[in-house]
C-alpha cells in the first residue's frame, strides 16, 4: 500500500492508517532529528511535534510530492525551531565549570555506536550545512526533494553540501587517516 493510499485512508476516517505511516517513517525521522539535534529529548519533542502537525494538516498533502519529502519538510522546520530554543536555554544558565568538568562526556546511549569523532564532526558543522549534509548523504534525498523540504534553492544546497563535506573531511582527517 503506498503512502498516498494510506493518506487517503486516514482522510476517509481510518485512523489506523496513520499508525502505519508513523511506523514507516519514524525510524528515518528519528535518525535525522537525533543527528541534527544531538540529544534524545529535543529530538523526540521535534518528532512528536512534526508527526502531530502532519496528522492535523494531512488534508494539505498533495500526491505529486513524495510523502516522505512532505514529512521531512515539517521535520526540518521543527528541528530548526528546536535548535533555536535550545540556544536560548543555553544562554540563560551560568555554566558551573566544576559540574561541566565532572559531567560525563558520553552522549545518549544509543548513539554511542557512532564513533565519537564522527559525532563531534557532525556537531561541529554549521546547522545549515549539517542539515544539508544529512538530507543528502544520510537520508539520500535528491536535490529537488531537499529544495522542497528546506525551502532553499538547489544551487545553495549544493554549496552547503560541498562545504559540509570539506569540513567533515578536514575534521575527520585530524583524528584518523581519512583518505580521499
Amino acid at each position, binding site marked *: 500500500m503506498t503512502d498516498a493510499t494510506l493518506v487517503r485512508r486516514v482522510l476517509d476516517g481510518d*485512523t489506523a492508517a496513520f499508525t502505519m505511516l508513523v511506523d514507516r517513517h519514524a525510524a528515518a525521522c528519528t535518525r535525522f532529528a537525533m543527528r541534527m539535534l544531538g540529544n534524545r529529548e529535543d529530538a523526540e519533542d521535534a518528532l512528536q511535534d512534526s508527526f502531530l*502537525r502532519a496528522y492535523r494538516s494531512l488534508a494539505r498533502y498533495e500526491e505529486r510530492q513524495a510523502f516522505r519529502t512532505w514529512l521531512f519538510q515539517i521535520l526540518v522546520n521543527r528541528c530548526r525551531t528546536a535548535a533555536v530554543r535550545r540556544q536560548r536555554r543555553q544562554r*540563560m544558565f551560568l555554566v558551573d565549570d566544576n559540574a561541566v568538568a565532572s559531567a560525563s562526556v558520553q552522549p545518549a546511549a544509543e548513539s554511542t555506536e557512532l564513533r565519537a569523532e*564522527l559525532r563531534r564532526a557532525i556537531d561541529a558543522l554549521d546547522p545549515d550545512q549539517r542539515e544539508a549534509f544529512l538530507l543528502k548523504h544520510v537520508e539520500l534525498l535528491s536535490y529537488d526533494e531537499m529544495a522542497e523540504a528546506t525551502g532553499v534553492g538547489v544551487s545553495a544546497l549544493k554549496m552547503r553540501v560541498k562545504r559540509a563535506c570539506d569540513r567533515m573531511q578536514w575534521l575527520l582527517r585530524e583524528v584518523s587517516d581519512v583518505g580521499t
Partner: protein
Amino acid sequence: MSEPDNPRWLDEVGDELRQEVPVRAAWRTRLLEDVARARRPVAGDDFDDRNDELPMIPTASVETAVAASRRRERVIVLHPLAGIAAAVVFIALGVGATLTALSWHARTLADSSTVTGKTPRPGTTLASNAPADREVVRFELSAPTASRVTLVGSFNEWNPVATPLQRDSSTGKWIVSLRLPPGRHVYAFVVDGDVKADPTAPRAADDDFGSANSVVLVGGRAS
C-alpha cells in the same frame, strides 16, 4: 552541476550515520495517544498548521514558566464541596447460600479530606490520570478462617501479591486502604489462592476468564 562520485570516506561516513536510531516505544505510544486526541483531518479540509510557530517563551519568563508547570503538578481539581464527596458506599449485605462459609464485607469510603480545590465544571468525567486526584478507598472483608487475603484489580495491574490486606486481630476483619484515582475500577479478592468477587459490590458483567469481578467507583459525584 552533476554530482561527482562519492569518495570512499564519504560512503563510509554516510553508512555509519545511516545506522538506525531506535524509535522508543514510549515515544510512539505517547504520539499515538496525542493523535487520538488531535483534530481529525478530513479530505477537503484546509486546516494547515505545519509551519505555525508557537510563541517562544521569552527568556525572562522561563523561570516563571518552570515554576508554573511545577505548581500545576500539585493542583488538585475535583469534587464539589457538598458532603456527598463521600458518595460511594457499599454496605455489606447477607450473602447467598453459596457463600455461607465466609461473611464478606467490603466497604469503600471516599475520604474527602484528601481533596481540596475548585468545583469541576459540570459534565467532566470521572476519569483522571493525575495522582494528585486520588482518594482513599477502604476495602474490608470478614474472613475468619482465611490465612492470607490480597486484592487484585485494574488499579494494581492484577498483581496478586501487590496489595495484601491486613488482619485486624480485634475484629477479625481484613482491611486495606488504597489511594485510587477517580473512575471505575474492577477488582476481586484472592482468599488463600481463590479468586472471589465481592458480592456486596456491583458486579462487572464480563467473565472472560471464568469468574466475575466487582466494581468500585471512586469520585462519584451526586448530581
